[in-house]
């Protein structure tokens, strides 16, 4: 009687650990297995498996392009599948049964490329004489590691300052802030208190640490000396600036305001309801506004920059969605052929106008098909500027970004000083350089 619960517990500990251990690898297998029995095509035709991250309506747009490609020639049949989960892609690659082509985030290029999970594309690019000069330079930077190209950009994302014209006018402003100093002054005027509680906040106070750092000329990496430069003057200024805005109000009171969770894609989005007078957000927001708050009188402008350096005008952060050929793909040649077709200006514009992401090509900026997407004109003009940067492609990029967020959060909450925060980042990340970059 007494021994029974003992055994039960030990067994249950084992079982539960085992369940966690195998659930991930199993799910990867079922996906590829369900793909296998498709044999409707003739034998000479090459069948490509393509995993993309878009779902729902966006996924349908992707399927539209896939069937267009399938009809345009008779050698390759592409089979698309919505599968944006990193873990599944990882399991498929390690299991030796990956798709022929997949989408992912440029943040993973450093890690996955350097570890051989993404195929280097140099040979395919030169064999097919692909012209890369039309790609946005910052997007091309994001897919390169150690001089090699491991992927190509399929979509890019950038954030701009959205402002509520009515609320700005009420406070006596006709134009949005151009510099960080102007933003600060305007913020004080636009924030409204009701007794002790905040009624309206000028802008979500926890600004993105990366975009803000770029706006202050901050650099995260010194490639020449292989140094983590989190103690860089620009990053320091950016952290300090955000802290200045943040500490004006009670931290608890501000936490209440960062509550868009669950309400972002709805009419209750705090920017739509005027709880925020301004916000920094991506190219997808105008489409949301059109859907949820069609009467919102808003404008778009580049993220403000550090007034002490005019050379930083129109600085901003670029995020890139990539297409890559996983290691062990069965048909890399054909996968590249489809990739090249999908990234051609014509297909790219077609896909982006439906999906509402920005095309990674310079020449797409003045395409009439994209001009009709709300806000795209401003975004595309901003995107082409020389101060748009990507976070450096590093094998430890994800660790680096996570550590920046962690220390940034601790600094804003007064757990560490500015110097401690930036030094902590360096101390945590610099050792990874020797470990991962040989």
């Amino acid at each position, binding site marked *: *009687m*007494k021994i029974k*619960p*003992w055994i039960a*517990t*030990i067994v*249950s*500990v*084992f*079982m*539960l*650990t*085992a369940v*966690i*251990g*195998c659930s991930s*690898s*199993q799910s990867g297998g079922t996906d590829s297995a369900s793909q296998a029995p498709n044999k409707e095509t003739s034998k000479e035709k090459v069948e490509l498996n393509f995993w993309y991250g878009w779902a729902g309506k966006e996924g349908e747009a992707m399927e539209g392009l896939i069937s267009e490609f399938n009809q345009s020639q008779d050698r390759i049949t592409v089979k698309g599948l919505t599968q944006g989960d*990193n*873990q599944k892609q*990882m399991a498929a*690659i*390690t299991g030796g049964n990956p798709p022929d082509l997949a989408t992912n985030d440029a943040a993973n290029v450093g*890690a*996955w490329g350097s*570890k*051989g*999970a993404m195929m280097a594309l140099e040979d395919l690019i030169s064999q097919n004489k692909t012209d890369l000069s039309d790609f946005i330079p910052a997007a091309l930077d994001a897919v390169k590691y150690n001089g090699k190209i491991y992927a190509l950009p399929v979509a890019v994302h950038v954030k701009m300052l959205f402002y509520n014209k009515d609320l700005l006018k009420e406070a006596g402003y006709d134009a949005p802030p151009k510099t960080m100093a102007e933003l600060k002054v305007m913020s004080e005027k636009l924030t409204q208190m009701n007794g002790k509680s905040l009624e309206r906040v000028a802008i979500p106070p926890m600004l993105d640490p990366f975009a803000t750092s770029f706006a202050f000329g901050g650099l995260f990496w010194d490639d020449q000396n292989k140094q983590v430069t989190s103690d860089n003057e620009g990053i320091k200024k950016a952290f300090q600036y955000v802290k200045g805005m943040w500490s004006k109000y009670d931290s*608890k009171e501000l*936490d*209440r305001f*960062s*509550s868009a*969770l*669950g*309400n972002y894609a709805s009419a*209750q989005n*705090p920017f739509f309801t005027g*709880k925020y007078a301004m916000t920094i957000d991506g190219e997808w927001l105008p489409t949301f506004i059109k859907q949820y708050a069609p009467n919102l009188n808003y404008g778009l402008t580049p993220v403000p920059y550090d007034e002490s350096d005019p050379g930083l005008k129109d600085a901003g952060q670029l995020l890139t969605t990539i297409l890559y050929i996983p*290691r062990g793909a069965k048909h890399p040649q054909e996968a590249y052929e489809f990739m090249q077709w999908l990234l051609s200006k014509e297909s790219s514009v077609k896909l982006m106008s439906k999906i509402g992401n920005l095309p990674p090509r310079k020449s797409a900026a003045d395409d009439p098909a994209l001009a009709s997407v709300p806000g795209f004109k401003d975004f595309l003009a901003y995107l082409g500027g020389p101060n748009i940067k990507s976070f450096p492609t590093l094998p*430890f990029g*994800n*660790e680096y970004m*996570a550590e920046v*967020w*962690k220390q940034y*959060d*601790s600094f804003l*909450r007064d*757990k560490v000083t500015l110097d401690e925060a930036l030094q902590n980042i360096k101390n945590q990340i610099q050792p990874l350089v020797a470990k991962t970059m040989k």
Partner: protein
Amino acid sequence: MNTSRKSFLTGFLFASPWIIGFLVLGLFPFVMSFYYSMTDYDLFQPPKWVGLDNYIAIFQDENFYKSLKNTLFMAFIAVPINLIACLLVALMLNMKVKGIAIFRTVFYLPSVIPAVAGAMLWSWILNPQYGLLNIILRALGLPDPSWLTDPAFTKPSLILMGFWGAGAGALIFLAALQGVPRMFHEAAEIDGANAWDRFRHITLPALSPVTLFQLIMGLIGAFQIFTESFILMGGSNGGPDQSMLFYAVNVYQEAFSFLHMGYASALAWVLFVIVVLITIVIFKTSMRWVYYGGE
């Protein structure tokens, strides 16, 4: 001899689906993870032997201590609170009132909802501005905290969410409650014991084996808490001030965001040892407070 061998084979054959499943999906990953914990393994390249380096690194890792602290909070504060809640619900569901079957069903219902869906639902209820909970609190003139964005309130939010699922635990208590012999209560009543005395000296001891079971299952669950943090915080970042960075979340982040599978395996083994130790301590001390009816 021959027949017994035959029946052994037959039995073995019938048990083989489980045995094979256990060996391939249970024991094999278990052993491999121990091997990986001694290597530098990034999933894509072959593992490199590093001996105990990963284990040494764990004890210098801030995230390890932070995640352990958060997890221990859930294990030793949230689990007992939840147990008390389960017991209270069970006591209420044990009352003889009209429509008790409906109440039992209603209380059990949330347990049927998948954790992901439940977490999504709660992210709405706990929304500081538009959430149901804060609307009620404001109407009563009570403070309305920012449940999921204030580091001091994220874990209490999870405790609150736990109450909602208390029906499953209550059901087990309820079954045990109905097994408490009536005669003990009657005898005590005749001796003049009041309701509290009877609860304290009859019901609680009679429930103690079930309490032990629930406590251990609750602890195991608390040490593996993952889904709620992952859904509510939108990934493995751990939320504001890393207040929701639980042990399993940290393991996930190391393995799948940072590609440190070797290190993550070592973390998992350290957790295993911690859970075993705690289980042993509880069993040792349980002799003092658990009573088995058969003895």
